[in-house]
């Protein structure tokens, strides 16, 4: 068999003649295209520049993108993109919003005397709990698993798909403003429970309101606590009075980063959750997905099954979860949810005894640790 020639393989035989350009003109065409493209997309370019990790690359990108945006805006060239985005229903894509809400509670109740907590609401297939799940990319796989687990209770309905946005958090509101986004989405959805996975992208210098602090400094911790607290309170302030489940960051293969960065962030989550007992629950993922050591939990790719086989629970990057890992985290979240809500008594209770939203137990806290006194069927 005759081997095909390259001319035949390119799939360009018999085409009408084209006018070739000299290399210099090709470069000119490319430069004009990039310049025109940059001017027309200036708003998106500026947003991309601001979204770079804090450092010299971001500074350079800002230095280039800002004057391009200014020129484009002055010449009304950015209007084309604005109109086009509006046509697509995505007008807010290029918006840069640095505003981050502050907490509405100021006195920590951590370590306080036992307090009567919000009632443990009951939900039934007739009156389903509205569950919203979202966060950064770490929330994706567990979120999908949670959809299966939670809906299997028969008393939980999911509000939309798992709403994750990769490489986002609270450190960089100009990249993605979670409080602003959640305000829009949750106000419309009015969920009873919110499962939020954040923090894994936040071990960096803060930008936006009160930004500029380098990671880990006391000022950083204070500002990050303010942001987390503000986010929690804005969610709790919804008309549906949802419970919030903050999912902690699990040990990752880079244990140095976990111990230095993520433990600090988890502790802030934990502290802020404890300041809102019975309304915000911190879900600790380390015991669920980590390998036990004498000093705590460490990263592991796989966990042993009862029959001795090993199931891989983490994906190849050493950060995200496999489906099996996602199932484990989802299970831990659901257990916490069952502390806050009664999702099961409808299965055995007489039809008239459990009314939608009825208080079926009292949850109290002692030194910040919630305990449940529930009338189990």
């Amino acid at each position, binding site marked *: 068999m005759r081997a095909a020639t390259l001319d035949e*393989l*390119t799939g360009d035989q018999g085409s009408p003649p084209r006018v070739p350009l*000299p290399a210099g003109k090709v470069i000119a065409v*490319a430069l*004009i295209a990039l310049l025109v493209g940059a001017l027309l997309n200036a708003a*998106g370019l500026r947003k991309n520049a601001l979204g770079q990790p804090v450092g010299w690359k971001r500074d350079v990108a800002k230095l280039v993108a800002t004057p391009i945006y200014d020129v484009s805006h002055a010449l009304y060239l950015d209007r084309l*993109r604005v109109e086009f985005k509006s046509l697509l229903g995505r007008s807010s894509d290029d918006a840069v919003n640095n505003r981050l809400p502050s907490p509405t509670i100021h006195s920590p109740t951590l370590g306080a005397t036992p307090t009567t907590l919000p009632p443990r609401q009951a939900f039934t297939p007739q009156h389903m709990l509205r569950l919203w799940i979202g966060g950064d990319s770490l929330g994706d796989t567990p979120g999908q698993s949670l959809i*299966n687990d939670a809906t299997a209770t028969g008393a939980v309905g999911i509000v939309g798909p798992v709403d994750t946005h990769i490489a986002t958090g609270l450190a960089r509101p100009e990249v993605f403003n979670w409080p602003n986004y959640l305000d829009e989405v949750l106000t419309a959805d009015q969920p009873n429970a919110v499962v939020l996975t954040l923090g894994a992208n936040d071990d960096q210098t803060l930008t936006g309101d009160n930004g500029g602090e380098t990671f880990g400094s006391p000022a950083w911790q204070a500002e990050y606590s303010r942001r987390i607290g503000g986010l929690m309170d804005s969610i709790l302030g919804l008309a549906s009075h949802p419970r919030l489940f903050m999912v902690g960051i699990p040990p990752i293969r880079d244990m140095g980063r976990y111990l230095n960065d993520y433990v600090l962030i988890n502790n802030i989550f934990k502290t802020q959750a404890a300041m809102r007992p019975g309304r915000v629950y911190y879900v600790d993922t380390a015991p669920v997905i980590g390998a036990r050591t004498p000093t705590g939990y460490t990263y592991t790719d796989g966990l042993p099954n009862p029959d001795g086989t090993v199931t891989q629970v983490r994906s190849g990057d050493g950060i995200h979860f496999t*489906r099996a890992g996602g199932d484990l985290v989802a299970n831990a979240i659901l257990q916490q949810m069952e502390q806050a809500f009664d999702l099961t008594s409808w299965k055995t209770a007489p039809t008239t005894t459990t009314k939608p939203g009825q208080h079926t137990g009292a949850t109290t806290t002692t030194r910040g640790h919630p305990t449940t006194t529930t009338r189990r069927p």
Partner: protein
Amino acid sequence: MLFPTITFAIFFMVVLPTSWILMHKRFQWQLFILAASYFFYGYYDWRFIFLLAGSTLVNQIVALQIHSNERENVRRAWLAVGVAANLAGLGYFKYYGFFVSNATNLLHRLGLGVSPTVPAVLLPIGISFFTFQAMSYIIDVYRKTFEPRGLLEFAVYLSFFPHVVSGPIVRAAEFLPQLRERHDPRKVDSSRAFYLIFVGLFKKVVIANFLGTNFVDIVFANPRQHSSLEVLVSVYAYAVQIYADFSGYTDMAIGLALLLGFRFPQNFDSPYTALSLQDFWRRWHMTLSRWLRDYLYVPLGGNRRGKWQTYRNIMITFLLGGLWHGASWTFVVWGGIHGTFLSYEHWQSTRRAASHHHQVPDSWRRRMLRRFVIFQVVCVAWIFFRAESFSNAAAVITRIFDPSHWVAGAPLVTGGVLLAIAAGIGEQYIPRDAIAKLMSRFSRYSPVAQGLVLGVAFLVINSMGPRGVAPFIYFRF
């Protein structure tokens, strides 16, 4: 470094003029393009550079040994060493965890309980592509259809940045002679190059990313939560997503190489217009199909050794072709579906030929019916390709055929999703002549007009695409 990023645009705008300035100085050009390609490849992870350089060295030594020896058994032994080294590298980086976990589970079933910790091996990007290219080089040298070149030329061939991470799989005989050709800087086929780059960008950034993030990923992650219609449409959407993603990448790769003065073979030729599965494989990932045909199927005996041997060879080729795509049994099943249907087509055609069966007259309706049937077969196989496990694939299939969910709503099947699917399939039915005329007309525009048109194209693509660029599906293969 991903093609549709500002970082790559800056990188390319440095490489393009420098490349043309140095083009007439062969040695300097080769050094420059090698450095640029290694920079491009190392941008993902600098450690991968050593793997690429190691592969280059080993394969060059093997090729020279094969070439310098006259004795057949020595040549064959060196070829075996080369093939084994390439497969060992691929096996370690890509399949180690897969083999260990499967072996562990098998031993457990046999009552021999061992629980080794499976070390996570980082998968070097593009390893499947450059390994196959290196293998074609040493096999061609062994077959005496190609003489080995100098180390620098071979290194440029293996690492050339437009094709290093995701193909097309360009053979040494197609690329290396171009290194010695005189490239005329006054005649760059820029209109075809720009067409391919911008169509590739549109396919990737607009169609593939939109369908992937807004629809396919959501449905496949949890098929039991969606209606039959949503799941069914998600399978078609994935067929379009993977086509737009992969063909978009190779379109860009071919266009970028063309701007640098190099021609690559075509990799996709309207695959969803195929009239048979054999026809599909002449149109889908054409460079891989040719590679599997010439370096696996034909050496196994092809169709020359009788009916059953032919079926066996088809199945082996496609099962291994499936495994090439990833370390998972779902990919093997994907290959098995294709192999089985191709064997069926082969059986049918030989039966027709033997019985002098009357040829049914071709008609427009008949062609459309055949296209429809082949598209369904391809889509069934895609379910296994996309699913993360057999249970996930089973959930997709059972949900499609579950009558209790046929009447449920399909809120995810929006007008945008249907439009993207229609665009991805419709694009393949645009007559080739019309595209050729479009490129020809564009080539007659002045450079300023060309730049303006392309600038507006940037606006459309950038505005329609989601923020950020999802990694290309084929990067992990």
